[in-house]
């Protein structure tokens, strides 16, 4: 019932009394940083005309706006000299570990989603959403295959006047490695470990789609619903997001530079190998 804080010498993140991440404190300055999971119900149509398309393997088409998954999150806090973690349980099929390593300047989110329940006959598309106080003015940035960052503007296209019929998916873009937003004071970037759909549907917020389970084909040829299973149950997906948060005017390295280095480390990671050493002692091994 009390607020929980974990962190290191660079930053602290706090969780409110309902168990949601709520603020981040860097250099003594506290900013809003809230994270939660929401889901979109997949649209279900007869696919005859464009407006009746179902959400499926080729199409993300939500039926209405997002649904919340819980009002309170269960926490388990682990603190130590090497890493501090908060294990969050949102519900039976969504959980996450938020961790801060002793010598890192970013926050790691390890999410675990699934099996997505479909007993109600409704497909669901799960999104991790971050909220900040940044006045981003509808502008956000998504990467192109881990390289150039492309400027995106909500409800806008650079080369024609758009009348968006799909207010949510019409603002979704491919995010291979990073999505970011900023204002003159703050910059927040979320790095992902695999290609995901992402957007910024309100100023200061970023979202990435982490998992989806749909029950109807979307009539683009595969003739199969996107309903992957493992061991007879809906697939469980696990992955990571890394959040780099900081003052826009930081001295070198700039926030973007820090993001680039982190991106390299996370997407070209060290290869881990394990060897059984049998009866050898350390000295023999050395």
């Amino acid at each position, binding site marked *: 019932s009390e607020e929980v804080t974990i962190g290191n010498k660079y930053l602290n993140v706090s969780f409110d009394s309902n168990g949601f991440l709520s603020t981040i404190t860097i250099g003594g300055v506290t900013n809003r940083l809230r994270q939660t999971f929401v889901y979109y119900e997949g649209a279900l149509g007869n696919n005859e005309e464009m407006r009746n398309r179902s959400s499926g*393997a*080729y199409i993300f088409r939500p039926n209405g706006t997002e649904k919340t998954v819980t009002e309170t999150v269960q*926490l*388990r*806090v*682990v*603190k*130590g*000299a*090497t*890493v501090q*973690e908060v*294990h969050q*349980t949102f519900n039976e099929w969504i*959980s996450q*570990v938020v961790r801060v*390593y*002793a*010598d*890192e300047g970013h926050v790691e989110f390890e999410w*675990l989603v699934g099996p997505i329940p479909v007993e109600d006959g409704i497909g669901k598309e799960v999104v991790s959403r971050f909220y900040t106080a940044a006045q981003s003015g509808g502008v956000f940035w998504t990467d192109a295959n881990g390289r150039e960052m492309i400027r995106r503007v909500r409800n806008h296209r650079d080369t024609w006047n758009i009348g968006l019929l799909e207010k949510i998916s019409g603002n979704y873009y491919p995010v291979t490695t990073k999505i970011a937003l900023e204002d003159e004071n703050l910059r927040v970037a979320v790095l992902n470990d695999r290609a995901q759909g992402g957007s910024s549907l309100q100023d200061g917020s970023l979202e990435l789609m982490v998992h989806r389970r749909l029950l109807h084909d979307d009539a*683009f*040829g*595969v*003739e*199969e619903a*996107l*309903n*992957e*299973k*493992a*061991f007879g*149950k809906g697939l*469980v997906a*696990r*992955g990571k997001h890394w959040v780099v948060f900081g003052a826009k005017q930081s001295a070198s390295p700039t926030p973007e530079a820090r993001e680039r280095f982190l991106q*390299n*480390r996370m997407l*070209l*990671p*060290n*290869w*881990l*190998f*394990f*060897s*059984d*050493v*049998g009866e*050898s002692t*350390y000295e023999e*091994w*050395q």
Partner: protein
Amino acid sequence: EPHLNVLREAMGVMQHHDAITGTEKQHVANDYARMLHRAVGACGANTKVVLNQIVDPKFKRSGRSGQPQDAGDYHAQPSPVYKFGFETCHLLNVSQCELTESKDSFTVTLYNPLAHAGHEYVRVPVPGGRYIVQDYRNVEVSTQLVPIPESVLNLNYRFSNATAELVFLANELPPLGFKSYFVTRAVDSLDDFIHEAKPLQPESPVGNDSTRWH
């Protein structure tokens, strides 16, 4: 070369937009996963040879040299005599690794593919207890044992004895180079020894969950 060709062929097939976006039928997606797993596993033989050569330039691979092993049975072949096994654990993302869960002593080797020095907080699934981690200069590295979240422990297709992850900082990883750590499970004292002798009893929860792990 035959192992690398298996991966080349798999990657050739995966150029198809279906393989990249997941717009193929489920059984095709499963087959893509099977092809990739087999190909990456086949190349495990290549990384083992190369790492053994980096570790010990005098190392010459014994056993059937030059015979193209059919990658299909790369698991089946008794691997030629390697100085070090350099096994890969593909299920670290759900905290599962048979070798680190069952051995009291093992090494962890990190190969840094970047052109500049790196570091990483290593997480190794273990069944609990206390561990000593030393680098090649006999420097003991500080470690922390972190419980694996309930939601991971309860995954219905995770077959593992690990209940915790051993976390330690591997730093000064040389560019395009490797660094190894020697991990030993410590039996501290007699009562530890007695505790060791008995099968690990699940600890009785003390207080509610959060106080137990504070």
